[in-house]
């Protein structure tokens, strides 16, 4: 990061749109802000975050490309706009629901989750209803990822390939059943990768290709995607 992206021209130019805060853990107590890494939720290096003027972490990201920086800025900016809207209209169900969904997307909070389920039981706009449905789909996909990770960890080394194949089939069936990523977000790539593998195994060439095209949409943002997509297409060729 420090010898690469942070030396590139796009970083020098685009970073001027932000206040740049540098924290160096040095093990010398007299240096500025020692311990701030943990305070802001970091547990490894480098840790890069977007914060508001109150110092609240809005999102963490890796500024490895210009698109990744732009993506994080959009996400953080949207969050601030939703938060301000909810603060300006504390009794507005739409403003509250949208803000709570954004907040839950950053950090789990049981109290907020309960509040959200109460808010959406009431009258909300069709746009907020649609956003809520997308939020629920996203949550289901994230839960799928968690369950798959647990199954992989529980499997013996020799069984892992079989378990992964089994979950790829589950992902494909789930995708085919209508559970698709509600947005072009990196959090759903793993689910899509599995669904593409499952579709490939099932011989659903057209279905697999559609999912691969969705994954390919990240190529500008994540350079490794191009190779991953190539591998998926090779697998698809083999299955024919």
């Amino acid at each position, binding site marked *: 990061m420090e010898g690469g992206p942070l*030396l590139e021209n796009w970083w020098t130019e685009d970073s001027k749109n932000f206040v*740049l*805060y540098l*924290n*160096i853990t040095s093990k010398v107590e007299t240096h500025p802000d020692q311990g701030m890494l943990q305070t802001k939720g970091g547990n490894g*290096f*480098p840790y*890069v975050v977007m914060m508001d*003027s109150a110092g609240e972490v809005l999102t963490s990201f890796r500024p490895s490309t210009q698109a990744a920086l732009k993506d994080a800025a959009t996400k953080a900016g949207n969050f601030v706009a939703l938060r301000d809207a909810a603060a300006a209209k504390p009794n507005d169900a739409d403003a509250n629901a949208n803000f709570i969904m954004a907040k839950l997307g950053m950090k789990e909070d049981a109290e907020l989750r309960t509040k959200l389920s109460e808010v959406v039981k009431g009258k909300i706009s069709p746009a907020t209803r649609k956003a809520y449905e997308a939020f629920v789909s996203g949550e289901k996909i994230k839960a799928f990822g968690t369950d798959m990770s647990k199954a992989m960890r529980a499997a013996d080394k020799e069984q892992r390939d079989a378990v992964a194949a089994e979950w790829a089939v589950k992902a494909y069936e789930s995708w085919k059943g209508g559970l698709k990523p509600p947005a072009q977000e990196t959090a759903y790539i793993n689910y899509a990768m599995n669904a593409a593998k499952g579709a490939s195994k099932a011989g659903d060439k057209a279905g697999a290709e559609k999912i691969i095209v969705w994954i390919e949409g990240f190529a500008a943002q994540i350079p490794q995607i191009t190779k991953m997509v190539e591998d998926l297409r090779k697998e698809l060729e083999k299955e024919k």
Partner: protein
Amino acid sequence: MKLMSVALLCFFAVPLLAQADGFEEKYQEKLKKDFITKASWVMKLDEAQAKAREQKKLIVGYFTRSYAP
């Protein structure tokens, strides 16, 4: 007894001081890195927050370390 205390102090404190000096040197070396000198970084969060309020900007916080590569 006094001599033993001095010896113990030297045994523990001198390496610690040397280590602390090592951390300081590594920190100073880190500050010379191109990625730091090429941009306008603020090193204290409260100052970054004040600047963000004044300029109505978001803060990009970059957390790194100097004691190890």
